[in-house]
């Protein structure tokens, strides 16, 4: 398997706090990579650095053979990296369909073609009957699917998902997990931030564990579950809480 994404020594600090320091990892084509870590570990910052929303102080992000470090977010999207946001960012005053069409327009020049593609993706995320609902009228779980659909519409090779199951009601979690697995089946490489340990252990091929902005482990789920540093990091947060 070849590397789709390589991240080398990626670092960023905000006013003296090292949100990310020297993060190195790679993502293989076709795999699901889980990213775990306690709150404030730097997971979302890592996504922002990879997708160009935050400029890095040091390090490189390489997509296939192309250096995409610190280039504009829209260019990164056009190169085939899609993402969702932890704090959802739907186009609230527009319908689900309109939201997804915006994504589809990246690759499609014709509005009608883009519309049809958007509909297929909405069908893929199981929301077809909600297509004319305004984004603000959808539930949190549905909005997560909306963001996923919107990102998928840009034809990503790599999809970064920030807490797909975070904040949604328990019953909708299995459906969302199933959706992630369906993505993998469709040949999309996925990097997912996840708080639910059971889910992440089940679906990931490999896991990147962060704590206080540093990489503490990068291994298979089995090895991760036995890694003392990871266990400490998590127990540490339980103590603090």
């Amino acid at each position, binding site marked *: 398997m070849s590397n789709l994404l390589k991240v080398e020594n990626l670092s960023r600090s905000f006013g003296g706090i090292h949100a990310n320091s020297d993060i190195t990892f790679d993502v293989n084509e076709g795999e699901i990579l889980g990213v775990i870590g306690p709150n404030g570990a730097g997971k979302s910052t890592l996504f922002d650095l990879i*997708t160009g*929303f935050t400029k890095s102080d040091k390090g490189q992000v390489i997509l296939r053979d192309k250096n995409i470090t610190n280039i*504009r*977010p*829209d260019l990164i*999207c*056009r190169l085939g990296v*899609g*993402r969702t*946001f932890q704090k959802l*960012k*739907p*186009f*609230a*005053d*527009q*319908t689900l369909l*309109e939201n997804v*069409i*915006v*994504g589809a*327009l*990246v690759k499609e020049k014709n*509005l*009608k073609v*883009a*519309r*049809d593609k958007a*509909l*297929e993706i909405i*069908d893929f995320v*199981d929301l*077809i*009957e909600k*297509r*004319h*609902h305004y984004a603000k009228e959808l539930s949190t779980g549905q909005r997560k699917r909306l*963001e996923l659909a*919107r*990102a998928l*519409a*840009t034809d990503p090779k790599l999809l970064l998902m920030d807490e797909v199951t975070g904040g949604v009601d328990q019953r909708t979690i299995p459906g969302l997990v199933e959706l992630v697995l369906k993505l993998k089946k469709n040949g999309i490489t996925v990097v997912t931030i996840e708080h639910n340990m059971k889910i992440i252990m089940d679906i990931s091929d490999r896991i990147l564990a962060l704590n206080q902005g540093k990489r503490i482990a990068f291994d298979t789920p089995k090895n991760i579950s036995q890694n003392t540093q990871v266990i400490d990091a998590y127990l540490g947060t339980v103590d603090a809480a």
Partner: protein
Amino acid sequence: MNLISKELLQAKNEPLNYFNKNSLIIIGIVVLGLFLYPFISPSKFALHLLMMIFMHAVMSQSWNVLAGFSGQISLGHAIFFGIGAYASGYFYTKFQITPWFGIIIGIAISAFIALLIGVPMLRLKGHYFAIATLLIGISFQVIFQRWPEVGASAGLYVPINRDSPWLSMQFHKNKVAYYYITLVFFIITFFLVWLLNRSKLGYRLKAIRDQSEAASSLGIHVSKYKVIAFIISAMIMAPMGSIYAQYVLIIDPNNTFSADISILVLLISVMGGVGNIWGPIIGSSILIPISEFSRIYFGGTGRSIDLIIYGILIILICIFRPSGIVSLIPRSFREREKVK
């Protein structure tokens, strides 16, 4: 296959845009009525009033395109009205270039100025952008008040030409021509904005307005499109300045580059409904008659009674109907009535 794909198939067969038959018929009748109106009752005041309504609807639409489509709030939109007025007026006065071509020059200069202003302002967000546009708008007024080439504070008097009304775009005997000119611009502008709303550009701009970060994660170059929206907005505004100049034949910094115009277009849009293409028409149809009638009843500038009413109405709208009067109209008459 299963049920879901049937729904998908049905969805794909839906038209891209819905047209509400009833509203299309109503629009058709209204447009026809407006074209025939001068033949039915050519009262000078009524024509003047309608003309002012059309003109302000277009001016507000210009503002609305910027705010409603890309989320940038301008408090200095009179800049482009003034540029339009001065462009046609100056080139006609100095070089006898027909104002019709002057309109095009005005549009071009406005687009260029919008580009010059728009690019450095991209870094500014929210209030910083709004206040910057307010100050730039006033700066234009200050500069034109002191620029001898364009008559400084006295302004430009467009030379009277009675021989070739169409070439000079001056109609002294009968104001009906002005009515038709504004009506045509009004219809064209609204048709173009309606198209914009449904175009790829429109989708991208509305995405930026609602959530600019998400938009850029979907491959939209946010800065570029913000400048494009600013330029389009400026190009809509400029011809109104030119037509106004030909109508009153006096162009001075106080009646063109006035902060009052910048604020008025904002008030009209908010009154009608920001981000809705009918908003400016509705807002203009409510506010403009107030000032025209108060001018009749109270004389002169109407002792600013119109402004008192404007101000109070706007505050009430902000408190009770922030989405504007358009939100009072039942949804079925607006768009996408087939839904739900």
